[in-house]
């Protein structure tokens, strides 16, 4: 079980800026960056963390592969949302507890962190890199939308942190 304190969440060390170069040198840099990411992913703690989330994504891909999976008209899981969710998972800080992975009736992947009945935070991973989120912290609510480009927005990390404080 991952334990964490409020202060322990940091940005993911694999959160490299996106390579915008077009030269051969840029290709070399991109290849070396990818190799570095691979070696990080193979460390025990980091690898296990990612492995659990990716297993969750594979599971929901299988379980929600057909329309109307809930009997109430839900859409089958959206492939782009799955891809975006994997990318999101790859840049989650290792100190963040593993979220539960699920799919909502719109077919989008949702990550949820829970710590008690009224302490939870969920992020819907949209197909257009949009992150619709909502949190419930006792009597307080928080919600909004962010856009995911090169790194996970600070507000998302702050809300995950808030679940455990």
């Amino acid at each position: 079980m991952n334990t964490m304190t409020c202060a322990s969440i940091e940005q993911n060390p694999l959160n490299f800026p996106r390579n915008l170069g077009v030269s051969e040198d840029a290709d070399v840099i991109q290849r070396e960056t990818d190799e570095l990411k691979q070696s990080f992913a193979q460390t025990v703690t980091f690898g296990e963390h990612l492995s659990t989330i990716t297993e969750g994504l594979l599971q929901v891909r299988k379980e929600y592969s057909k329309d109307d999976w809930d009997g109430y008209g839900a859409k089958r899981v959206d492939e782009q949302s799955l891809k975006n969710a994997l990318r999101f998972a790859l840049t989650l800080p290792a100190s963040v507890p593993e979220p539960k992975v699920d799919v909502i009736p719109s077919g989008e992947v949702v990550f949820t962190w829970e710590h008690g009945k009224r302490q939870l935070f969920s992020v819907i991973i949209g197909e257009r890199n949009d992150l619709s989120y909502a949190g419930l912290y006792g009597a307080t609510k928080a919600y909004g939308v962010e856009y995911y480009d090169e790194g996970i927005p600070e507000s998302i990390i702050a809300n995950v942190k808030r679940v455990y404080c």
Partner: protein
Amino acid sequence: MNLSEKVLSDEPLGRFLTEHNHFGGGGVKFKAFMPPPKTLALSVFRIHNLTLDQIWEIGENKVIKVMEQEKTLYGVADIKAEIVTREGLAIKPDPLPSRHTNIINWPQEKYRQLSIAQVLATEAELKLKPRSR
């Protein structure tokens, strides 16, 4: 059966649970209350003055049996009408099947739908259907 035409604020509404992860940890999960994307109308039943056996009968005969997919009835999320309207939603009774009602007026924004579903799930009481032997 003496239900008023308009749903009263203290009336219980039942959202039938058809997925194993509609509930967990002794409570209802927000996923059970997320509206279907096409209609944004959440199907529930008025369960006022019904015994649990009568509730299961409605769930099996009016929900599970009419679904196109083969589903299992796991239980029901019991929520008061006033909690639904407090979140800005409306309750629109259907003529058929009897006791059927839709929760409508959901906002278009996904983050608002998510927030409302979280509150409804937290306020709902989970009633699990006993498993058949």
